[in-house]
């Protein structure tokens, strides 16, 4: 028997597999495919104070080994999430829940964090200071140590639950931001959000995305994400949710070896709605093949080597 359980900042998960924010909605579309109670947890769509439509279309582009999106945080707004999405989710989902929170100012992040953390259903708050698709929000906080520290500190003050800060790979040095968040009281770090990229339509000679640039995710970013998780693990003491291109059970284990306590899966859910189910079903056999009896022991197990 392989033990897949992990403990994430004190929250027990039956396995480390977590659909990533923005790639799983509020769960309902996936519940049409499988019983989502088999997940370790899931992180719902980044929620802002006001409802948002997001950016103009087209806002998705196909890429070798991945995709670009410039959705720009389309969400129903905090009020609707509290009064409609969460009560509906409660009727069929009983595993831990991660609330992904967006914002455009410290005030908004704090208000969103306080409101969502007060929900009994929410186990972890994930502060998205890394969305590359909105002006003036997210990203601006995730690329400056001082701003990351300020927003983390202010949100932690109103968040009795574990607070994870989600980082962008587009920062000059992601480990500096991670250290700033840790110093400000973060209980954990999520990384990585998408990498800024673009595509150009050859026939029309113009960018494919109406927003010109967008966030690149999918298998192509896995090695970059893995390296960043590895470096961040060495730089902070708080737990890490690692993500970026994870598509298979082997990728999950590799992310954990790099230092992740739990692993999020994003774009893979969009091209295969059963992705997380298959990963979870594959984990025991892959662990057995690799001689792993307790998966949680893999976290950071690839450290200690010098270049």
């Amino acid at each position, binding site marked *: 028997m392989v033990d897949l359980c992990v403990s994430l900042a004190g929250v027990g998960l039956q396995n480390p597999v977590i659909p990533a924010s923005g790639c799983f909605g509020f769960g309902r579309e996936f519940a049409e495919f499988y019983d989502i109670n088999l997940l370790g947890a899931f992180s719902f769509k980044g929620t802002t104070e006001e409802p948002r439509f997001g950016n103009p*279309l087209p806002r*998705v582009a196909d*890429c070798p080994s991945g*995709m670009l999106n410039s959705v720009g945080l389309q969400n129903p707004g905090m009020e609707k999430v509290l009064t409609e999405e969460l009560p509906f989710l409660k009727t069929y989902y009983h595993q831990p829940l991660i609330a992904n929170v967006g914002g455009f100012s410290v005030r908004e992040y704090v208000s969103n964090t306080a409101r969502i953390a007060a929900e009994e259903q929410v186990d972890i708050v994930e502060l998205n200071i890394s969305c590359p698709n909105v002006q003036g929000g997210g990203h601006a906080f995730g690329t400056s140590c001082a701003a990351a520290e300020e927003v983390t500190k202010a949100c932690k003050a109103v968040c009795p639950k574990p607070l994870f800060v989600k980082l962008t790979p587009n920062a000059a040095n992601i480990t500096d931001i991670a250290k700033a968040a840790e110093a400000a009281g973060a209980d954990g770090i999520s990384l990585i959000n998408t990498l800024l990229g673009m595509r150009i339509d050859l026939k029309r000679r113009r960018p494919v995305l109406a927003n010109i640039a967008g966030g690149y995710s*999918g298998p192509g970013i896995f090695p970059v994400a893995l390296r960043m998780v590895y470096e961040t693990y060495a730089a902070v003491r708080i737990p890490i949710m690692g993500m970026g291109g994870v598509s298979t059970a082997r990728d999950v284990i590799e992310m954990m070896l790099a230092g992740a306590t739990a692993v999020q899966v994003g774009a893979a859910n*969009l*091209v295969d709605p059963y992705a997380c189910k298959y990963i979870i079903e594959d984990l025991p056999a892959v662990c057995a093949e690799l001689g792993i009896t307790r998966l949680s022991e893999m976290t950071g197990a690839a450290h200690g080597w010098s270049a």
Partner: protein
Amino acid sequence: MVDVPMLVGANAEIAPGVYRMQLYTDGVALTEELRPGQFVNLKIDGFYLRRPISICDWSHGVLTLVYKAVGEGTRHLSAMEEGAALRVLLPLGNGYTLLPDKQPVLVGGGVGIPPLYYLCKELIRAGQKPTAILGFNTASEVFLQSAFAALCDTILTTVDGSAGVKGFVTDALPKLNPDTSTVYTCGPEAMLRAVFRSVEFSSVQFSFEERMGCGFGACMCCSCKTVTGYKRICKDGPVLRREEILW
């Protein structure tokens, strides 16, 4: 919804760049629950995102798609040989709502025509007598006309007049009474807009295309603003009623 492997059968060019592909599957995926106007999402080897294609027709164990090779993905699809396997996610989208007490007129342009074929069959099965108006640029590009003609009254239009009525589909549209008739349409946006202007009654149903991330409502990549709020073309669409459209 299911994601099933299917085997490519015939995959023949039926007009320049337009292919009819048959996909074989055992059982569960193809049932009476498929609604006309719904689509499938194809996982093509070598491409990350799936490609959405409308259901043109199906019978027990065989799905028929008609698609145009416009880019890398559909070109790859057109080169697939008999016996090759493909993962197919289906059925997706809302599909058309059949209105039993209204005389149906089907208006299609180019690769917007395929979903109207299954719609036509379903309307006939429900005891109705549809009329189809099919628009193309020129005679050499015409496809599916004889298939429609075998089922119902079919009017062909070409922009250059090389076959059928010269002009656009809207030039062939008869004057319709909103109490007794309705229109089901699919085609390029310019054509949809022309139909929108020509037939000003609320029951008309339009099928839209947008670039998609998932095709089943999870990513918000395909969202559009409508009179009744934001709608995901893949899940709340692709079919919208005229009264919902913000044009």
